[in-house]
């Protein structure tokens, strides 16, 4: 109908594209786009009234920091930055990792997590759908851990400068009054426990990264450990030390326990639980499971007298079913971690230098 005059009533100024699909620089600009992103992605997922206030800081009621018994509690405070590729891996994602990792750092001090902050650095071009999925993982992990995400921040960096996204979480936790964790220094003869199979997280990530297919995919062990810690401390209050063997794996954690100290560690290599598929993947890639990261395991140094009770408590918890007593603190070789091999020999287990580099053959 080209000879009819155009219908001018249908003309309207087009609003800018809403950018619903991908992150653009404006999402970090602090304007309306930022606000929309927060309201559309973060607030519904985290569903927390304190966060929903969107104040410059979260105001936490003091009752959160005191128990019924009253007095003597201490506050634990921890922060951690999370970068991982791929962002989603079997058994978790950077979202669940960012919650569980910080919750576990608190838990290793015996602290029940109370509140988390979360800061996001997003890369321009990140799919909003993926971001929503990762944020949903965070929310789920926070619910499981019983902790609220109460404050946060979002920035956007140019494409090519952000690796998708990184997340920094900071956590506040409450160490119950009367907690004796860490008050008894480790002594020669103390038992060393691990709460389950080692190397699962690192190999889950690595097997995706390297495209290794196994009949059963390796799943990350990423999990919040406070419940396990609480059960352990109830059964054995005089735990001397708790650590979560994350980067650098069990070798790094054991090395740090004795570095510069008057004690050494001796452990039975055959007693360290390793999933057979993880062991096979390490074999293929020329890696040492002792040096591979965990995200849902703990190492405990406990008095020998309480070791069996502690082990039973770990094993009774869903996250500790494969817990094992792997070794002991010794006076013989201070500062050194020695593995007894299944063949009757012994070798030093060094702390890994940096990134593990796969061997050629």
């Amino acid at each position: 109908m080209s000879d009819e005059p155009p219908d001018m009533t249908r003309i309207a100024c087009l609003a800018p594209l809403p950018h619903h699909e991908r992150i653009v620089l404006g999402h970090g600009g602090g304007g309306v786009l930022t606000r929309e992103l927060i309201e559309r992605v973060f607030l519904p997922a985290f569903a927390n009234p304190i966060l929903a206030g969107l104040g410059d800081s979260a105001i936490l009621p003091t009752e959160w920091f005191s128990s019924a018994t009253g007095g003597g509690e201490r506050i634990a405070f921890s922060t951690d930055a999370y970068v991982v590729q791929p962002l989603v891996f079997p058994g978790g994602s950077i979202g669940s990792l960012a919650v569980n990792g910080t919750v576990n750092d608190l838990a290793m001090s015996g602290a029940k997590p109370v509140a988390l902050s979360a800061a996001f650095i997003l890369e321009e071009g990140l799919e909003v759908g993926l971001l929503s999925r990762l944020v949903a993982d965070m929310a789920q992990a926070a619910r499981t851990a019983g902790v609220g995400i109460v404050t946060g921040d979002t920035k956007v960096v140019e494409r090519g400068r952000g690796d998708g996204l990184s997340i920094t979480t900071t956590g506040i936790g409450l160490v119950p009054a009367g907690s004796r964790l860490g008050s008894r220094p480790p002594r020669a003869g103390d038992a060393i426990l691990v709460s389950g199979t080692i190397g699962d997280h690192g190999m889950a990530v690595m097997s995706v990264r390297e495209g290794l297919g196994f009949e059963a995919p390796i799943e990350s062990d990423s999990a919040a450990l406070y419940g396990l810690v609480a059960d352990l401390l109830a059964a054995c209050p005089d735990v001397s030390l708790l650590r979560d063997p994350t980067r650098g794996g069990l070798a790094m954690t054991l090395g740090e326990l004795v570095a510069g100290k008057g004690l050494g560690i001796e452990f039975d290599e055959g007693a360290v639980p390793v999933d057979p598929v993880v062991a096979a993947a390490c074999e293929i890639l020329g890696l040492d499971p002792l040096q591979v990261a965990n995200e849902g395991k703990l190492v405990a140094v406990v008095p020998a007298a309480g070791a069996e009770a502690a082990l039973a408590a770990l094993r009774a918890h869903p996250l500790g079913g494969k817990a094992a007593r792997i070794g002991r603190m010794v006076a013989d070789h201070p500062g050194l971690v020695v593995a007894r091999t299944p063949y009757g020999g012994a070798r030093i287990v060094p702390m890994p230098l940096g990134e593990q580099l796969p061997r050629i053959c």
Partner: protein
Amino acid sequence: MKHLAEYRDGDTARRLAAGIASIVTRPWAIMEVCGGQTHSIIRNALDQLLPPEVELIHGPGCPVCVTPLEMIDRALAIAALPGTIFCSFGDMLRVPGSHGDLLGVKAAGGDVRVVYSPLDALDLARRHPDREVVFFAIGFETTAPANAMAVRLAERGGVSNFSELVSHVLVPPAIAAVMESPGNRVEAFLAAGHVCSVMGTLQYPPLCARYRVPIVVTGFEPLDLLEGIRRTVVQLEAGRHELENAYPRVVTEEGNAAAKAVIAEVFEPCDRTWRGIGTILSSGWKLAERYARFDAERRFAVGGIVTAESALCRAGDVLRGAIKPNECPAFGRECTPRTPLGATMVSGEGACAAYYHAGRFAAVQGERP
């Protein structure tokens, strides 16, 4: 892993070790050629199970350790070229060249990537047709088939932006070089099982005859290694010097025909310099003339390489078995896994790195190494 458990049984290992102790009557020096075997021996502390008469000398079989300095410097220069993606096996990244290592090149902006197979590098070349993708093709006969296959596939597929920096080395000439070196103490060899799985065993009987030395093809699991050592000691005690295959579940006399065919097509023998040891005639492979255009050495004219080996490092003496790592004056002082002067202090298969840890333990026990 189930199939591996039967080669890792502690009781059987102790029985084998006791068997060795019961037949040995005098000291013997046995060299395990392959770095993978060294790694397994140290990791499982198998040497501590053996009677004191049996001394294991760690041979020049860590491919990372013997790659010549000039080749590493060349790799560093190529990796630093703009537009290049330089791919390598992981443990090469920390090996010191004259000035720095590949990790340093990466930190300075070079695109250096760890791959597990040359075929991954070839794939990168396909996906980045605008970039030059170079694979650092080092190793013994074991890694050669895949390295050869990548070049052949690049040729067939017309992937012209792929090349290999080839520094392949061979086991039999190394065994001959060890036997002919002045002051040699080696009296028997454990041949590298995986090398033989590719090449077969027919190259070894002439070496046994010429040097009157027993050679036992040996695997990598604890029981494999102990069985190989046991058979070697049996031969030594009986005055025999034969080739034996103690790894028949993997190794056949003729080897892998398909792998040998692709190697023969793509590579040709050449003289090779071994880091710390020197030039050994016909001890390596380079790309055959037909595939010369995939040779990174020819493609990238990185001139002006002046190598500077650490004056303190005695890795060569270690690799020949002339000294133990802890007899090097720099061991544990200037040279540690954190500040390696030579490649043998870098790789988990390197004798110096292995000793660094084991030696520290011995020192604590009062046996200052």
